[in-house]
């Protein structure tokens, strides 16, 4: 405090510019600074008004430590895109972190949740199989002989995973098919088609219309996969051949097509059905001929899907090569490129791509790994050949896990 000298004159009362009745307010930019009201400002920069006082404005921080697109790029727009729920449901033999062999579990991956990949339900007494399918806007789970519809329970963002939050069961029990194992689910013609395995010649396909279960066809070989093709439903078997159904009430009429293909995955591309069977061959059916379309020597081909990379739609197939590498091949309707992308050259633990999916703008390979269990490999947008490295997503919780498949909903 400055030393005070002798001051002449009468001292006037002090004027207070603060207090409970005094509230500071914003700039007043009229021409005469002398006309600025007592509680107003002539100039205010980087301030905030709160509780009658003036505070400093909070600071800025960088979000991205490295520049986006270019060091001179203009970030010209930001949008908050609260997308609808679109999860990649992953089905494990066992449950990650708990068992690699006992029972079956389902989790879900979604970049819009945290943790991104969570365990969800675990059926530790199941012994046969677990499949998933979408019908009427809901996800259905077939576990052994029981059909459930999933009641998704989201854990709070950034908090815990769904399994810890909601427990091992989030499904509503719908039906039980004693003596059968559910092997495939597919929506078609307003019904859910359920493949039921009771052995060769004793299996069947049942429909569910939201109200009633009906036998659609019986006394058949075990159904193993479905796909929609043209305006029909195509069913594959774990033994051989395929069967085709037109639209219509259940029970329906199925036409069989003979061929030595034991279907694992099926999809339709450019009006042709493509089938993988876990071996070296990709089969096709064009409405007339069921036959081998492509052979990759020494390969175990499983995953197959179509994907639009923004310029065209391609058929992608995933296999484990004779050298135990996870590889993605691509077909444009004319030309096969078997070595479109080798995942293992980037991620050495990657093995068999059991499922391929198109998910949120990327191509996803759902794989098993060497000694580590399931991983997801997601392309960076449409860089399906790995020009920009795929993103590797590891399974939830620690430890190994069993075989892995997936479906998008």
């Amino acid at each position, binding site marked *: 405090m400055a*030393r005070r000298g002798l001051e002449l004159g009468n001292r006037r009362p002090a004027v207070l510019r603060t207090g409970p009745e005094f509230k500071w307010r914003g700039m007043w930019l009229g021409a005469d600074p002398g006309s600025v009201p007592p509680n107003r400002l002539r100039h205010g920069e980087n301030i905030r008004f709160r509780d009658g006082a003036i505070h400093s404005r909070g600071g800025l921080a960088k979000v991205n430590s490295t520049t986006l697109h270019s060091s001179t790029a203009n970030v010209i727009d930001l949008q908050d895109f609260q997308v609808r729920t679109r999860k990649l449901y992953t089905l494990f033999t066992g449950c990650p972190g708990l068992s690699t062999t006992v029972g079956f579990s389902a989790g879900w991956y979604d970049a819009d949740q945290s943790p991104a990949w969570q365990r969800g339900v675990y059926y530790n007494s199941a012994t046969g199989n677990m499949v998933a399918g979408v019908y009427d806007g809901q996800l259905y789970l077939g576990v052994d002989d029981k059909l459930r519809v999933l009641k998704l329970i989201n854990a709070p963002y950034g908090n815990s995973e769904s399994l810890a939050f909601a427990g091992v069961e989030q499904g509503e029990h719908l039906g039980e098919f004693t003596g059968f194992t559910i092997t495939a689910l597919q929506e078609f013609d307003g019904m859910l088609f359920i493949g039921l395995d009771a052995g060769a010649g004793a299996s069947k396909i049942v429909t569910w219309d939201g109200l009633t279960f009906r036998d659609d066809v019986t006394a058949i070989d075990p159904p193993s996969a479905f796909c929609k093709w043209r305006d029909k439903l195509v069913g594959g078997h774990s033994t051989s051949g395929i069967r085709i159904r037109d639209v219509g009430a259940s029970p329906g009429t199925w036409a069989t097509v003979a061929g030595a293909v034991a279907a694992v995955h099926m999809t339709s591309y450019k009006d042709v059905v493509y089938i993988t069977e876990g071996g070296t061959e990709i089969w096709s059916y064009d409405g007339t001929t069921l036959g081998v379309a492509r052979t990759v020597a020494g390969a175990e081909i499983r995953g197959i899907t179509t994907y639009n990379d923004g310029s065209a739609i391609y058929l992608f197939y995933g296999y484990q090569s004779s050298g135990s590498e996870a590889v993605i091949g691509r077909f444009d309707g004319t030309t096969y490129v078997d070595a479109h992308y080798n995942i293992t050259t980037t991620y050495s633990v990657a093995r068999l791509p059991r499922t391929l999916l198109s998910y949120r703008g990327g191509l996803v390979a759902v794989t098993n790994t060497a000694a580590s269990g399931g991983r997801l490999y997601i392309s960076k947008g449409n860089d399906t050949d790995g020009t920009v490295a795929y993103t590797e997503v590891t399974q939830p919780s620690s430890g190994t896990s069993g075989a892995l498949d997936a479906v998008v909903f």
Partner: protein
Amino acid sequence: MWLARTTVAGGSFGAVGKQWWWLPTTTSAAGFTEIPVPSNINVVNLKETAAHYDGSLFICGGWTDNMVLTPDLNFWAQGIRAPTVVPTVATGAGTLTTSVICYLQWYDAETDEGSPLSAPSTTLALSAQGVSWTSLPTDPQNPRVTHLRFWRAVDGSLPRLVTERQIGVTSILESTAVGDLGEAFTEDFEKFPRCRYNAVWRDRQVMAGDDEHPDTLYLSLIGLPERKSISLRTKSGQPITGLAIVRDTLLVGCTRSFEVVSGYTEDDLAIEIAQPQIGLASHHSMRLIHGNLWVPNEIGFYVTDGSGWFFVGDDIEAKFSGEYKIRRDAYERSWAFHDPFDKIYGLYVGPHTDVASKNVFWAAAYDGVTPLEGGRMGQPDWSYDTFSRGYSCGEVLYIPNGRRGDLYLGGSADGTIYKANNYDPNVSGYDDDVADDGTKHLIIRTGAEGYGDFGGDLAHGKRFTEIDMFLATEFKDSTLNLYAGDEDAYPARAVTKTFLMEASRATSADDYVWQSKRVWSFGLANVSGRRLVVEVRADTTHRLEWAGYQVYWKEGPAPRRESATLEGA
């Protein structure tokens, strides 16, 4: 998830643009994923507008076509053009006995969007026959198309859906019975022209800012946002500069007026002038805050609830309109953010006369913008937010299912996104714009106050003896400047005093938080004049709070001096 769009100046012409999605956990460029853009679409170096509908995001203005981003993150041009071939049909094996006219349609199964029908085929007379479709087109010239659909008009009825096939099929033979045909094709529609602005209103997408018809508003079919159905022209004939929805009212901003669209169906949709003298400076300068739309124009700022219009620029009117006059382009390209954390509406304008070497936001604290008696509206508290760096966009982003959001700003020409109010207010660096290029200035300057005692003639005035400052500044020092004189700016060499207010932390002890030092008393010498300007300055501040001051004076001379020598100094 969140979206970002970047542009980089092209080598010779135009710009290169990319669309990205990212997550709240993103911390580097590696966390951004590029969304593929169709190869025939180029970026335009203008801000875009976006409207949500049915899970998709409809985007206008930032690309050479109107775009749609689907929930599966596919990025397509809006609307699909009809097949350009006439169907080639002939009789084949079948069971139909009727006359048919055939059509083709492109279809996207992901979005359930189809093109208009192709031109019709020649009439085919069937007698216990089917329809053989051959020479089918296999290249839709549009990457989003997944299927080709087949339509048949039977005996003069509306075309009905026969079937669909994946792209690649070259011929089909069908004999679908009339009773098994699908939906009828009932509506005529077109693809929207490229526009700059859009909104979704009463289940229609509305677009405007067509550079070829700037006074025209386009509306889609109900529930089918990519299908243009209706056109309306502004009553004033003025070009449209923006669109906004306020309480279900569609406001059409024009250069010098605002118009309103009413109605629901094609029979009663109409447009009328609502405000003949209130225009809109920039579409991107509008923000809807708590039911009021903020609208800047050449006069200043208005807020509207869709019905009433209230001027909220009383305190800055002359300055704002003057700045707009000398920086017309910047103000007509301005954009605004809403920060719910600080309750601020901020309008970015760039350079400003009163702020040297900085880029400026007009910042309005809108707490006081509430209805008053007599139909008036409370005024906001204005200040400037200033930065060394320019910014191009600002948006509040929410984590998925989050109930609160944070303001993010997009950097200009630096490839960086910034988060506002990022820091914990309890730690050092809370206020720092550490990411900004230069020093952040905090300036609080009062008017030239005479405290109701201006004295009589030139022989009278005031000699200021003491000032008490009520200011807390944690972590870093702040400065008090005093300018005494007769007017604000005179004399140029008016006596100033500078005092340092040191940083002082709040201290937690004995189960109580002891507040930081916030009372500073300074004795003054040689500070005289009729009026006093009090100024607080802090560079790169750390949590400053100023409650005000108290000043003391005695009678004393305060002549209008021509030199710096003071009497009694």
